[in-house]
């Protein structure tokens, strides 16, 4: 692959506008990508602070710090912030930065839409977080917002629904942009089956988002009309059914969990080959596995509802379909290991995070397989075992993949190498504490501790104390991450264009830092 760098004299007006207007008006995919990434980094600390309130209250038995109602709104908001404010925008930010560069495109297909989909987010989250300061408090019925409980909430509920609608609009617009870019902006010769896996996983993720976000929007709108306009979609008193909400919600909610992990698969599939100095094993099967996971994600939703009293036939169907998901997911893990096998590996920070991802995501995947076994799931359901499971796939899973991606591409973004020593310290401290934090949750969950409770029986005290120590350790370890980013932005050893010895792909053919405009003339793909 080679780049044809074309020089034009009439392009100086394309440089960034000065000051704040650059960021407000920008249609540049790199600027917008940067804003998404910074936004999600800030929200990571907001959501993290909420998690620390939860862990502080749970440090010892008894209620010491917060009222149970506020505790509930912390668990609810923590989830909303981390899902919609951290993981999703961070992946969109990476997509913005990397997809055009990976495809040899000059920018995203719809740059003005791109600007809009970003700027909706801070606005929507301001509305969402403002509910915490209203008289009736923030949402406290869980991020799943099951009725009738969530309808007991005060009038701040309307603000929550409003904010969700706007976040949804932002996500759908971002997804349309990504799909349009991938289908229309590929450089000549960049066939679908030559695209980097990160692009593939994002293409499939974008379709999941476009298909499911409107369903979620419909569900919360029905809640809104039940609350304010006298409808009875979810109230038995008016002929409705509260369980119908759960079906609609999880029809969105289950694909949503794959939205949070598929781009991570793409990132890991880029990083492992680079540091193993060996091409990704089974590229084709990785693409097919991603597509299979996406398809299966639409037919497993009711495995979140095994205790709601579904008919036996439905329970059996959802048990079998859920177990099936472990097949394509297993294929992915095996392919990563096979990529490492007989490679020539080095372990810079991105690779450490990628290996950490494979190990800990696999642990989360295996507990997911346990959860698929319906009779056992009925016992696991709504306990800390489930909390342990989804935090293993989301924190040392999705979040670790985001950190791996940041270390991997940061030299390309800033033109400087980050501090390798600090990066490694960040990885090891995070890994130790994240396991202290989440591993004991398996134990207390199995032993009978329900989730979403502000106080617990004394038999769970020791493990909860350990988890809380892990939480604070993990939380403060992220300050190292911020420091590495600031340090790297300010300066450091200059990065080469290639950056990593084993790196392969169009993004490594442009200068470091990547110029404001790249691939104004399409590269040739051989």
């Amino acid at each position, binding site marked *: 692959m080679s780049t044809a760098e074309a020089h034009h004299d009439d392009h100086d007006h394309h440089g960034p506008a000065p000051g704040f207007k650059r960021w407000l008006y920008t249609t540049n995919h790199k600027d917008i990508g940067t804003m998404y990434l910074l936004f999600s980094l800030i929200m990571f600390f907001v959501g993290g602070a909420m998690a620390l309130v939860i862990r502080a209250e749970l440090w010892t038995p008894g209620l010491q710090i917060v009222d*149970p109602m506020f505790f*509930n709104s912390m668990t609810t908001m923590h989830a909303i912030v981390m899902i919609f404010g951290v993981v999703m925008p961070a992946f969109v930010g990476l997509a913005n930065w990397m997809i055009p560069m990976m495809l040899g495109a000059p920018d995203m297909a719809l740059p003005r839409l791109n600007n809009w989909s970003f700027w909706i987010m801070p606005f929507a989250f301001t509305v969402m977080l403002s509910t915490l300061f209203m008289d009736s408090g923030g949402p406290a019925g869980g991020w799943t917002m099951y009725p009738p409980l969530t309808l007991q909430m005060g009038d701040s509920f309307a603000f929550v629904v409003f904010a969700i609608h706007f976040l949804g609009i932002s996500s759908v617009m971002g997804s349309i942009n990504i799909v349009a870019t991938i289908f229309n902006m590929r450089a000549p010769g960049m066939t679908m089956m030559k695209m980097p896996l990160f692009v593939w996983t994002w293409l499939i993720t974008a379709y999941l988002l476009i298909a499911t976000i409107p369903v979620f929007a419909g569900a919360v709108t029905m809640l809104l009309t039940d609350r304010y306009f006298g409808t009875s979609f979810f109230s038995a008193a008016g002929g409705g059914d*509260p369980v119908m909400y759960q079906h609609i919600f999880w029809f969105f909610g289950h694909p949503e969990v794959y939205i949070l992990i598929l781009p991570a698969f793409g990132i890991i599939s880029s990083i492992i080959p680079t540091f193993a100095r060996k091409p990704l094993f089974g590229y084709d099967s990785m693409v097919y596995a991603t597509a299979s996971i996406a398809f299966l994600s639409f037919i497993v939703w009711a495995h979140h509802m095994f205790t*709601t009293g579904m008919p036996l036939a439905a329970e059996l169907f959802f048990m079998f379909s859920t177990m099936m998901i472990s097949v394509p997911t297993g*294929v992915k893990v095996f392919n990563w290991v096979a990529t490492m096998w007989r490679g020539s*590996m080095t372990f810079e920070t991105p690779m450490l995070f990628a290996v950490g991802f494979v190990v800990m995501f696999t642990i989360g995947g295996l507990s997911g397989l346990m959860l698929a076994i319906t009779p056992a799931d009925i016992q696991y359901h709504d306990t800390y075992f489930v909390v342990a499971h989804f935090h293993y796939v989301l924190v040392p899973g999705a979040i670790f993949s985001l950190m791996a991606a940041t270390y991997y591409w940061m030299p390309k973004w800033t033109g400087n190498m980050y501090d390798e020593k600090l990066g490694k310290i960040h990885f090891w401290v995070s890994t130790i504490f994240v396991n202290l934090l989440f591993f004991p949750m398996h134990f207390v969950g199995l032993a009978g501790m329900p989730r979403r409770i502000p106080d617990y029986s004394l038999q769970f005290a020791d493990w909860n104390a350990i988890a809380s120590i892990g939480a604070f350790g993990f939380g403060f370890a992220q300050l190292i991450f911020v420091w590495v980013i600031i340090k790297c932005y300010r300066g450091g050893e200059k990065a080469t264009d290639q950056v990593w010895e084993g790196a392969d792909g169009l993004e490594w053919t442009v200068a470091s830092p990547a110029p404001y405009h790249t691939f104004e003339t399409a590269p040739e793909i051989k």
Partner: protein
Amino acid sequence: MRRSLLRAVMAVVACSLVLPSLALAGYGDTIDMTTGVTEISRSVHSLHRTIFYICCIIGAGVFAVMFYSIFAHRKSRGAKPATFHESTTVEIIWTIVPFAILIGMAWPAAKVLIKMEDFSGSEMTVKITGYQWRWHYDYLDEDIQFYSQLDAAHNAARQRDSGVELEQFEHYLKEVDNALVLPVGKKIRFLHTAADVIHAWWVPALAVKKDAIPGFINENWAKIDEPGIYRGKCAELCGRDHGFMPVVVRALPQDEYDAWVADKKAEATTAKLDAQREWSHKELVATGEGVYQRNCVGCHQAEGQGIPGMFPAIAGSDVANGSLEKHLETVLHGVGDSPMQAYSTRLNDSELAAVITFQRNAFGNTTGDTIQPSDVRSYRNGQMQSLATDTGYFSNFNVTGAN
């Protein structure tokens, strides 16, 4: 190299089985699922262990290969990268083999599930209704019913900064005022529903967890093998005090259970007589304070001050100092679109009379009113008449559907 890899994999697999077993044996009640006391709970436990061991073996295998590779195939040891990047054969193998394992697991799981869903042949039925935040048990065959909620001492201890030493409670947050009493050796059917929001009735030792959904009835069953006390919790987030609505089941041998039923019926007769007689003001206030502590204190707080913005105060309120009619209406029928629930079926006439008398003469309220059980009864009767002549709006709907 290949042999050493095989040895490494075997060693890790062995460790992955031995270590968890040792750990589980030592700390069973804080790190693993209970075996329980029903046939179903034992089946569930064995499914749980089987799938756990399968996961350990898969995990150990994958990690062993991976860590061997990390150790052996690193650049610093002079490893030269191979160039292979696909093999249809291995892709097929690692698709088919997990699939076969899954089928092997799905079969016993389906068998247990089918057994769990077989409600036929039950010998008695208990209807369990979830309320914010207590349970109501109704023995459909015996005409016995009562509420069950967190024990008062535990409830006091769990208030924020109560300063109570929690170590004195052996079963902190898992003790109730009235346990659900059940006989052993009988197939007991549970009917689950709720009055306000969704709850979930969960007793790990019985492997029973089912959502209680307002307006719908769910079924479940258990046949308890051993007498004993089995503790559980509400498992579905149900609002502020979700963490504080435990379940306690006391399983008794048949003869002791029969004696308990007889006692309970005698108690009910006394309560009926109580509702007919005239009470003294002092007696009403004293009884009412207890009713208040069990039912109202969660929202309206110990001094009747409420929580501003969320739960109104009773101290100095218009309702507790104004017309008796309005007070009765508020307590019996609740306040629509607010967390204030209807207590007309949850408390009997004596309890209602007592708690209203208490509220009107406590927290600085000095109406001096005395409300007799007969007053509550005549309020109810008056209402029945007005409803009969009205177009007939019933604010309390009955449970109608089943899913």
